[in-house]
């Protein structure tokens, strides 16, 4: 079977690409579109370094075919900051030193944002179980969990202030 032509939306922009039917969405993002922010740590859905959302759902892009991605809304790490304004999670990861080598960081950020969209006030246990699909070998997770919980607290405070 030859290459397929796909039209989809990535980080709000319409994107068209051609890919082979056996190519993963991760390969398409990295090798065809030059979006190397999503990382390949395993290629088998075990490490979460390639996390993206499709129509708001958190997935490993190494387990999705590029050919399946047509007509969806895909969000990657490259779309997380608003221009030069970092997402509160990105800022919090920096302030908490929640990264050492940084290879797992894009995946953790996408996964953590997905958590806070569903559960703006997670317990430590909820954070730990939600992020259990993302492997980090440097930090021991301590500062990552703190960064996520502090972001939730800050966003809640801001939310209250905005509502008042």
């Amino acid at each position: 079977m030859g290459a397929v032509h796909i039209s989809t939306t990535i980080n709000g922009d319409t994107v068209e690409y051609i890919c082979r039917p056996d190519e993963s969405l991760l390969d398409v993002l990295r090798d065809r579109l030059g979006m190397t922010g999503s990382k390949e740590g395993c290629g088998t859905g075990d490490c979460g370094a390639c996390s993206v959302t499709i129509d708001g759902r958190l997935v490993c892009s190494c387990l999705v075919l590029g050919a399946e991605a047509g007509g969806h809304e895909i969000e990657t790490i490259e779309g997380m900051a608003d221009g030069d304004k970092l997402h509160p999670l990105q800022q919090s990861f920096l302030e908490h030193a929640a990264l050492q080598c940084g290879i797992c960081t894009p995946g953790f950020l996408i996964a953590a944002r997905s958590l806070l969209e569903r559960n703006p006030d997670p317990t430590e246990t909820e954070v730990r179980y939600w992020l259990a699909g993302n492997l980090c070998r440097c930090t021991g997770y301590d500062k990552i969990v703190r960064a996520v919980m502090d972001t939730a607290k800050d966003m809640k405070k801001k939310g209250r202030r905005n509502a008042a």
Partner: protein
Amino acid sequence: MPLDTKPNVIPTTFKTVGTRPVRPDGVDKVTGRARFGADMQAPGMLVGRVLRSPHAHARIVKIDTSKAEALPGVKAVITSKDMPAQEGCDMDVLTNVMARDKALYDGHAVAAVAAVDAAVARKALKLIKVDYKVLPHVTDVDEAMKPDAPILHAHIEHEYQQDLLETAGHVKGKKERTLPKGKRPSNIAGRYEFGHGDIKKGFAEADVIVEHEFTTEATHQGYIEPHACLASVSSDGWAEMWVCTQGHFMVRDVCAKLLGLDVSRLRVTASEIGGGFGGKTTVFIEPVALALSRKAGKPVKIVMSREEVFRATGPTSSASMKVKIGAKRDGTFTAADAILKFQGGAFPGSPVEMGAMCAFACYDLRNVRIIGYDVVTNRPKQAAYRAPGAPMAAFAVEACVGELSEKLKMDAIDIRLKNAAKEGTVSSYGPTFGPVGLVETLQAAKAHKNYKVKLGPNQGRGVASGFWFNFGGQTCTTLNLNSDGTLGLAVGTPDIGGSRASMCLMAAEELGIAYDDVRTIVADTGSLGYNDISEGSRVTFSSGLATINAARDCKKKLCQRAAMIWGIPEEAVEWKDGHARPAGANAGNFEPLSIKELAAKASGTGGPIAGHFEVNADGAGPSFATHVVDVEVDPETGAMKVLRYLVVQDAGKAIHPDYVEGQFQGGAVQGIGWVLNEEYIYGADGRLQNPGFLDYRIPVCSDVPMIDTVIVEVPNPGHPYGVRGVGETSIVPPLAAVANAVSAAMGVRATTLPMSPPKVLAALENKMRKAAD
């Protein structure tokens, strides 16, 4: 001593050092902009792939590459014939990156292709026909030491020593209690011995003796970024390489030697590195990519799959050990003895020598002996893994110390305090310690709230201490003053854990300027003199030392420029708070000149201003740590939960405390993985059974609690600010600490790692059976 050598006066107060600013590479890493090994492209780039042996041990009779070469889209196929031995090259490394007459382990590279895309490359690998003659194999360290074991290398010979009869009894044959005489081909590649005093006499003086045999399984560093490199050799023989490595100067020199290139013809740039922990201190795919590029005449990128990372990079050793410690009733150790046997994979070089040196380093011992055996097996050639060799040795030693404390009814920290190494202690491996902080870590651990928590049923507490030497090494650093007074700092040590932030802090501290005014880059091999690998916990120590001295060089030059402007002797100018100032009233009355003003005037006062420093750094200070952990064992399933974990470690001086804590926490959790889950599992066929993150399970977020930390600061006199390396010591105590906690919770001594649930259940059942008898 030269007359101009001033004693090192370590400051007691700091302005910038010790603060916690955001790291300079941070924004790039949270936005996906940072470029790691696999993120680079080159025009006309080919995809490289490696064919690997499915056999643990096999003679390579013939390799037919003709069909692969004929496949459209294939631009180069190489075997060991394309990588002939070069004069002075390391044959073990060359043979490891591409098998020659034999495949020595499951995953050993036997051929490689470069093709227009990954699909063609994959297809080409399937078209390469290798005729193997399968040979008997051995993957277990004790099995490999037996006189009748399958031999990996005919040229390695060993004469058996009687000390082996004292251990597990694995070496002797089934019947005889004697060992073969004389040198004979063997898998024992080396024997090391350390110690002093008379252990026989020491054990005779003991009131209590504890003795156990221990085993640990091989584990992998488990960095999340697989090895990746992009090599480009041009037709005139100049070559460039982009690679994720802990040492790009090492990559350059080793690759140049393996391929017969002049070092100057190869320029290597270190990408951002997605974790290394020692596993990226050697070469695997880099020389292969260069050889493919040379043959194809195009850039070639190789990215390992996770399976390749597990099968064919450099996990650490598995170990078989015996430890014996004797003590007086008051807890004083009278003698200590250990035999350590480490397999290091298919080539000599297991970290047993360092394991032997570290084993008893925490203790002040009159009578001590450690013997270490380096053994080759049909497994991938081991590479360094964070404090190589020390965690396994500490596991065995600290288990015995823990049991002594139980037998003597002494507190686990008190018995360690009683015997702790301190300044003036003659270490078990030779040198006499200078100022070290083990006692301080023990005291801080004892005072911590975690040590006072009351435990519930099925819960246990474990304590363990650990030691790592730390290294200095070759370092070359340049600090360039920009025209606006900001600075560019070029270091040659890849940043594996936030070191650029620490370098900025030290340069800013020394110059009395703002952290944000210094930008640190990891320069390529064409831009600086040789720098050793980022290993041995040496970066903040030696690159930091070089940075401080480069800043001092810079200050000297800034003072010269101010002296020139003011028309006074340069001795009459001093540098303070980021300004050149007249040194005292006699020097004259001049307005201080800021670094920005001096930078603006640089072209008129002699041109660019830069500070340099080159050194083979000596004076690295050892770092000791004490860990305290509480676990709960589920007697129904054998599963374990870590309830709380405390790391107390001596950092000398914490330059950026966030990243010091990060090293403590990361090392502790890697250690937790090693003791609870992680292991290389080989089948009877010699093939690795679990080469993936699903079956080789590293700790995930929900497996661990917060990791509490206490930073102890006993300054290292060998560093201008007192820094000790911290990266490695943190993985030394966890195996022992967790195993001691599990043992306490089960009421049975854990002597084999990992303590996975089936092993815990078996131990508990065994205990119940014994109780019933």
